[in-house]
Each structure stands twice: as C-alpha cells, then as structure tokens.
C-alpha cells in the first residue's frame, strides 16, 4: 500500500489578518520527491513550520508520517531530517560540539559512521566554531545533521539559496543517494526550477498561500502549450480557451494555455489562427517558463 508521507487538508493561517496559507491541501506520496515552488512570501516556510509542529495552523489539519504535528512534534522530528533555509546552530559551538549536542536527541538512531563519512565527503572541518564556517560548510553541516539519524523523510527549505554551484551539486547528489534507499521521501522548496524539474516526481506551485498547481512534472509539461506568434492587433484574450499568459515580446506575442488533450491543443492553435496569428512557433515547455507564465500572469494581468 502506498501511503502519503505528508498530507495537509485545508490548512489556513494568517499573520495579522494577512493570510499566508489559504485552504492548502496537498499529498506527498511515500517514496517520491516533491518540489514546492513559489516566490518569496508565498507561504512555503510557514507550511514547513506547520509540518514540523513549530507553527500551529489556525484551521485545517496535517499529517506527517501518519502523525499529527500538533500532538507528536517530537516523534516527527525523530524521523524527519530538516534542513532549514538558514542554519540555526549555536554560533559559539564547534562543529564537533554541535554534533555531540544533536546526537543526544537521537540516542538510538544517530549513526556516527554516517556522520564521519559525510563530513569527509563534504570536506567539512571538525574543529572550527560554527561562526567561523563558510556559508557552504554551514549548509553542508546542516545536511549532515539531517541525514545522521537515517530519517524516512527529508525536508529542505531552499537550503542552497545564495550558495555556489558546488554546494548545490553536493545537495543534489545527497538527495539522489538518499532516494536510492527504499521508501524514502523528499519534500523540498526551491526557486531553482531546473533542479526541481530533474529531481521532483511531483511539483506544486504556491502563490500567496494558495496552490496553483499540484501535478507530476511530466503531466505539467504535457498539458501546457506555449506559442510565440505575430499578430496584427493585440490578441483578444477572451477568445483564447484555457489562456494563462499572453504578453508582448518585441514584435511577437507569447501566448500560453492549458491543453488537456490533442483536440484542446488544436482548438487553441485554431483560436490563434482565427485572430490572424502568423509565424506561429510552438515553444519550449520547461518548468521555468511554466512557472513564469503562471505566477507572472497573476501579478500583471
């Protein structure tokens, strides 16, 4: 039986009347990699805090590995590796002290051999205080700590934001290694769309606390049709079925629409033709362009 590692049902939250999550329902199947996309302030970090039991939802509920974070936050933390956006270790402790401190929370599951091997692999020095570590080493140490007790679920909140390509490579490889073990689940937030595209089984797009998309990456790419074309007059949006984005780029227009079948695709292309589209080119459908179409269109038009 395939269970969901994470389930949320109509989660709601607001800070000072300002909604951060709006009736958010998602399901992350066990054994999958789930990529959550969204711009800054879209609610990603609030969602993660709720999954870990750090923030209580004002309405709705969620389950992580079958447990309710409101009642079982400690049990959840013992089975979930979490890599935060910014590492929150005590800056005055050394790397070794930090590891010894964390180890005490995982008396039966902490694996010294795994820690040693990962520290060597990532070339993280053991003696310096946290405050003297580079950003890249801090991020890698966070990852080592998250993997040290062989968690079932790994949650990463933009862990490599602002870090260089080498750190990102280390994270990608660590995620791949993690996923080659049985029934492991990864939930990660990122704005590096190319990474999400290659790593995720499913992708969700969050915008102002609302779920715009929750789909397999393959289905998402299949169901969006992007076209650049030339029009004599601005295309009339209401006459294009499934339209999600329509903007002018120099002499051409970029038009994107949802098409759930070949016939819908043809209907879309015919609608463009009937408005006098020429030089029609069916364009690329990578995740980045889909994201920009979706999120961009909601802000500008």
């Amino acid at each position, binding site marked *: 039986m395939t269970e969901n590692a994470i389930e949320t049902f109509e989660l709601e939250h607001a800070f000072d009347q300002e909604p951060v999550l709006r009736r958010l329902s998602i399901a992350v199947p066990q*054994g*999958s*990699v789930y990529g959550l996309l969204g711009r800054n302030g879209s609610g990603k970090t609030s969602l993660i805090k709720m999954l870990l039991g750090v923030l209580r939802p004002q309405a709705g509920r969620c389950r992580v590995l079958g447990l309710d974070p409101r009642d079982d936050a400690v049990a959840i933390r013992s089975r979930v590796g979490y890599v935060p956006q910014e590492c929150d270790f005590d800056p005055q402790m050394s790397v070794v002290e930090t590891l010894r401190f964390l180890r005490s929370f995982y008396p039966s599951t902490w694996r010294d051999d795994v820690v040693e091997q990962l520290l060597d692999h990532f070339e993280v020095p053991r003696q310096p205080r946290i405050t003297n570590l580079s950003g890249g080493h801090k991020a890698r140490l966070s990852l080592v700590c998250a993997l040290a007790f062989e968690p079932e679920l790994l949650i990463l909140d933009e862990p490599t934001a602002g870090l260089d390509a080498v750190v990102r*490579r280390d994270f*990608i*490889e660590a995620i*791949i*290694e993690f*996923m*080659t073990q049985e029934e492991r689940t990864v939930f990660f937030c990122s704005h590096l769309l*190319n990474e999400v*595209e*290659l*790593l*995720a*089984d499913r992708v969700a797009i969050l915008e102002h606390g609302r779920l715009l998309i929750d789909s397999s*990456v*393959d289905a998402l*790419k*299949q169901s969006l049709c992007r076209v650049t074309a030339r029009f004599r007059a601005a295309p009339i949006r209401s006459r294009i079925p499934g339209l999600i984005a329509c903007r002018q780029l120099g002499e051409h227009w970029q038009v994107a629409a949802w098409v759930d079948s*070949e016939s819908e695709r043809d209907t879309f*292309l015919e609608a463009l033709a009937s408005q006098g589209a020429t030089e029609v080119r*069916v364009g*690329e*459908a*990578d*995740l980045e362009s889909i994201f920009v179409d979706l999120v961009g269109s909601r802000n500008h038009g």
Partner: protein
Amino acid sequence: MNLKLDTTSPQAIYLQIVEQVRLQVARGELEAGCKLPSVREMALTLRINPNTVARAYRELEHDGVVVKQQGRGVFVADQTVTLPATERRSQLNPHLDALLVAAWRIGVTPDELVQQLGDRAQEFFAQKSPRARKR
C-alpha cells in the same frame, strides 16, 4: 553510456532515457548482454531522481529491450524476437501517427515526408551493426 537529456522538451525525462537506450540498442552501440549502469549510478550521472531512472528501466524491461537479473543488474536483452508482419505494423502505427501529426502541423507535404523518412531510414540501417542487421 552517453545520454543527453533535454529539459526544454515536452517529452518526459524517463521517456527520453527509454528512447535513447532503445536507439543505441537498435544501432548496435549497446550489444546484447551489455550491463547498464545501476539506477543509483545513472541517477548520479544524469543528476536526476532515481525514481525516474527506475521507471525508464521498468519500461525498457517491459518492452523486452533489457532484462533484469536479480542482484546482478540490468542487461541488454538478446534482440532476436521477430514479430509477425501484422504485429510489426500495428506496433509501429501509433509512432507513425505521431510523426504524421507533427509533419502536418508544420506544413510538411506527403512527398517531403516520404523523401525524408526514406533518407533517414537509409542512413539508419547503414549504421547498424552487421549482427543487428541480420535480424
């Protein structure tokens, strides 16, 4: 094994792997009995989700292109199966339909299509290893 993935293609990543392996087998670049990289190795090389590699391998196994030997790995299958002509035709039809739609959409004429397909077929079969051609 050299695979190239294109994230701007609307084609799913696992299908890109399936098609490229299938093509390399058809061309004789991957011979029967040749061991494919493990799911883990392939995922690390291509920097993709291991689930995607596993799915591609399952598809290839289902199509008889590779065989999985428990505990040993995934190997290129002996491609000696010869299907009856009607079966060959019916398996090819959906691919031809996709090609026809693609050609029609960009305004390729039937003659151009036949010409181009003929040229490509010549090229392709000329490249195939003698062993593969025999079948």
